[in-house]
């Protein structure tokens, strides 16, 4: 079939897409009958508990396997001394595999919280106690886990997953010298953890010569293909299912629990379930690396940028290179004759970082949008106006024009809805009781990409349809969105469409990540539906097995080429700061986004607001603390690692302006991440406006506010 995109025109009038629709799996979710990975019953199930290293660097000297095997119910102890060897020399979806995933292959311990054993027992209680009691001895070696901006071992990596680590054009020092106003500041973001509500869980078993895994992930083919490479199996010999997923945010790919479960089921020949404890997720499930970012801006008297230099340093593991692409936003957002972005790394004895919701853009936009706010202050120009003046229709990084850039529209619409014109420019000028009040703004962008995907749709004789697409609904509402897309293109009611997803047997598909999921899957569904409708229009009878049409967007996605296709947004926040206690409360937040065709306004609003909530959480709460001497986390749990609670999140509103992508058959760009971008900066810029003091390190804890004093009007 043809896979050439034909624009947003559709043979049938859109009815479902763009109309609010409750989640199609909503009944299951509100009644508790939606089953997640650790909840599918298996006969003869055994339970595995991972044992993690308690030293930050060294070698395993011994594992008391015999002692553990004497404990009640214990079936097996897997460790580097007895585990099967697996293949780790391959290039996977995210490059070389994260060595944390390739468990029990050697005696080296590069970080605290490294998986050193799996204890399998008849019951979860027995496994947990045997794992806690397992005696592992180590020979310790010196470690370094202290991330700091001036770390002497920082280096420029050879490449990143998003292109070259450095981009440079023009003469920075000349442009800075010619600038009327200069900002040169260091911004720091904390180590953050995805903390999906459902911890990672997988059950593995062999069934008729195939390896079956019930898992919680962001892409079943992704996980299946990594496992196939690790265990040297044919991809067709593995089936991974992941029907309901309790959040992912970048952490749910191939990880230690699946690999350990496969090893255990292979040895024991019975189903084995491995569930990470909440604490274990802090070292096994990846994290957003802390960053130290220096941003230098130079502008003329009118606030127009002459120089922009954004350099970011992040930590990575000793055996795994992950660049947090925090300087990326500068390649999209603002142009200058001298323009430089750069990324550096420092290898520490820390667990492997990975992508986390809006990788690069979330921490990077905090730094860049904070710096822009400081520039506005120095120039005496309204922060909205400064950003409007520096709008560009050409991407600074590539020099190519944007397919669409409605940033100014977002700023104007946001300012109007937020009531920005009533703002007093001076900081520290508004007080209500014990609270200083301030407002702030920041901009957002996120790239709009697509991944090759296959789909199949079957028309049944009863007039209903089944859509088969290996999507992952990790809470995005993908199942519902794809139902709407299919219904429109098939010219039927949404009630007549069933979507099956989350099963690697459904075939290759993009993952739920990078804001590409719904766009990628909807594209394939749209194409299959379109051809199926044409086929049905010929009037043939539908046989009992139905009529099935397949689609594959591989060629179409390839044909997209490299364009500067992005979503944009403007974030506004109002905060209250108690200068006596350092408490910061966000009072309201408002975002306006130009983010392609919105498929389901009900779930889209929720997802954008959820992203903004992440911004509040990043700005005020989230911080994984590491003890430099032990190399381990301090309180790695949900009492020690604070994510925003309900009381932290006020009225948050998300709006969008018309921005359908002309090259996508449904007009989608993707909205999973854009809501988070810029949100933290909007909050901290508002904190400055309230107090007159810049907060350049996240999170803005009470002690940091108190340390900063309260500016001109403080107590």
């Amino acid at each position, binding site marked *: 079939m043809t896979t050439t995109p034909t624009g947003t025109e559709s043979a049938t009038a859109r009815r479902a897409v763009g109309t609010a629709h409750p989640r199609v799996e909503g009944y299951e979710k509100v009644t*508790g009958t939606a089953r997640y990975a650790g909840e599918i019953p298996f006969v003869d199930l055994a339970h595995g508990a991972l044992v993690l290293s308690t030293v930050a660097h060294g070698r395993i000297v011994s594992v008391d396997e015999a002692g553990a095997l004497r404990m009640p119910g214990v079936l097996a102890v897997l460790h580097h001394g007895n585990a099967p060897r697996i293949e780790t020399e391959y290039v996977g979806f995210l490059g070389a595999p994260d060595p944390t995933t390739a468990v029990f292959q050697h005696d080296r311990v590069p970080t605290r919280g490294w998986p050193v054993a799996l204890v399998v027992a008849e019951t979860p209680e027995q496994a947990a106690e045997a794992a806690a009691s397992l005696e592992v001895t180590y020979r310790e070696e010196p470690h370094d886990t202290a991330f700091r901006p001036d770390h002497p071992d920082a280096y420029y990596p050879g490449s990143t997953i998003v292109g070259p680590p450095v981009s440079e054009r023009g003469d920075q020092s000349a442009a800075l010298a010619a600038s009327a106003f200069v900002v040169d500041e260091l911004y720091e973001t904390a180590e953050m953890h995805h903390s999906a509500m459902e911890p990672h869980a997988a059950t593995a078993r062999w069934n008729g010569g195939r390896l079956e895994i019930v898992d919680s992930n962001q892409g079943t083919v992704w996980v299946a293909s990594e496992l196939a490479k690790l265990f040297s199996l044919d991809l067709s010999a593995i089936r991974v299912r992941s029907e309901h997923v309790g959040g992912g945010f970048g952490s749910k790919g191939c990880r230690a629990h699946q690999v350990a479960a496969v090893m255990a089921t292979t040895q024991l020949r019975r189903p084995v379930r491995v569930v990470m404890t909440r604490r274990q997720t802090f070292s096994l499930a990846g994290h957003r690396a802390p960053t130290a970012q220096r941003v230098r801006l130079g502008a003329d008297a009118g606030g127009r940028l002459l120089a922009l230099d954004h350099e970011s340093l992040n930590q990575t593991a000793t055996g795994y290179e992950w660049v947090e692409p925090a300087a990326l936003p500068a390649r999209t957002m603002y142009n200058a004759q001298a323009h430089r972005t750069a990324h550096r790394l420092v290898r520490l004895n820390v667990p492997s970082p990975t992508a986390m919701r809006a990788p690069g853009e979330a921490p990077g936009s905090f730094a860049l949008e904070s710096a822009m706010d400081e520039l506005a202050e120095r120039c005496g120009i309204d922060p909205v106006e400064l950003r409007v003046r520096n709008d560009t229709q050409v991407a600074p990084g590539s020099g190519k024009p944007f397919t669409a850039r409605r940033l100014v529209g977002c700023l104007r619409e946001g300012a109007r809805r937020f009531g920005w014109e009533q703002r007093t420019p001076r900081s520290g000028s508004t007080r209500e009781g014990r609270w200083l009040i301030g407002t702030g703004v920041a901009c957002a962008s996120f790239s709009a990409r697509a991944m090759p995907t296959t789909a199949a749709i079957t028309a049944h004789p009863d007039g209903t349809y089944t859509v088969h697409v290996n999507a992952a609904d990790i809470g995005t509402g993908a199942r519902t969105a794809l139902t709407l897309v299919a219904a429109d293109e098939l010219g039927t009611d949404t009630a007549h469409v069933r979507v099956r997803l989350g099963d690697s047997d459904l075939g290759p598909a993009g993952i739920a990540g990078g804001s590409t999921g719904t766009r990628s899957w909807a594209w394939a569904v749209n194409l299959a539906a379109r051809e199926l409708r044409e086929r049905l229009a010929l009037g043939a009878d539908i046989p009992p097995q139905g009529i099935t049409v397949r689609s594959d967007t591989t060629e179409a996605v390839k044909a997209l080429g490299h364009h500067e296709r992005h979503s944009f947004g403007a974030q506004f926040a109002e905060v209250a700061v108690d200068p006596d206690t350092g408490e910061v409360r966000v009072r309201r937040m408002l975002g306006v986004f130009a983010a392609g065709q919105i498929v389901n306004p009900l779930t889209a609003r929720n997802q954008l607001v959820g992203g903004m909530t992440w911004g509040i959480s990043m700005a005020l709460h989230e911080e994984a603390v590491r003890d430099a001497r032990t190399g381990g986390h301090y309180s790695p749990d949900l009492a020690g690692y604070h*994510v925003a609670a309900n009381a932290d*999140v006020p009225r948050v509103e998300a709006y969008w302006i018309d921005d359908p992508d002309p090259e996508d058959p449904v007009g989608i760009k993707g909205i999973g991440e854009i809501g988070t971008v810029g949100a933290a900066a909007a909050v901290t810029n508002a904190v400055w406006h309230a107090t007159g003091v810049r907060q350049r390190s996240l999170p803005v804890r009470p002690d940091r506010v108190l340390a900063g004093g309260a500016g001109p009007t403080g107590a």
Partner: protein
Amino acid sequence: MQTSTSSEITLDVNGEEHALSVDHRTTLLDALRERLDLTGSKKGCDHGQCGACTVLVDGRRTVACLQFAVAAEGREITTVEGLAPEGGALHPVQQAFLDLDGYQCGYCTPGQICSAVAVIEEHAAGWPSAATDDVRPESGASSLTPEEIRERMSGNLCRCGAYVSIVEAVARAADERAADERGAAASTEEAAV
């Protein structure tokens, strides 16, 4: 002293009695999930730090992960599966979460819903909260403002960040309950006349 580390117990869950032999270490949460196949109650942290395992015990919301099953014998336990009859109409709180999209991934949802059911009852019973300006009884009942809902629902973390919709859903369900009460009161008055 030699004591048994397991017991034969009966758990009263959603109006049904379940006879079980439990390892004393088995939490109420694990008994529900692993033994009774009631997996609606979720394990988000297993340490009372997230609220995903919220169930009602003797009508009050509690976290099931910090209770041992053996200690729950003799108590009436209601899980999310017990809020609405099977195949019947949803509980108004469930319906509000569904209609107003009070969730995303759904993993915290059963806990949120069980918590919300209790929050509405607690508020109706006149319980103050940390968001209540004046806790003294003379101050009268506070209304269930969004701020009150946020504070009262703060024991249920939602990492997807669906709090705004959750608050809207709880508010709607609370309004419906209040309207029902007014209606019931009005019809009682009518009957009295």
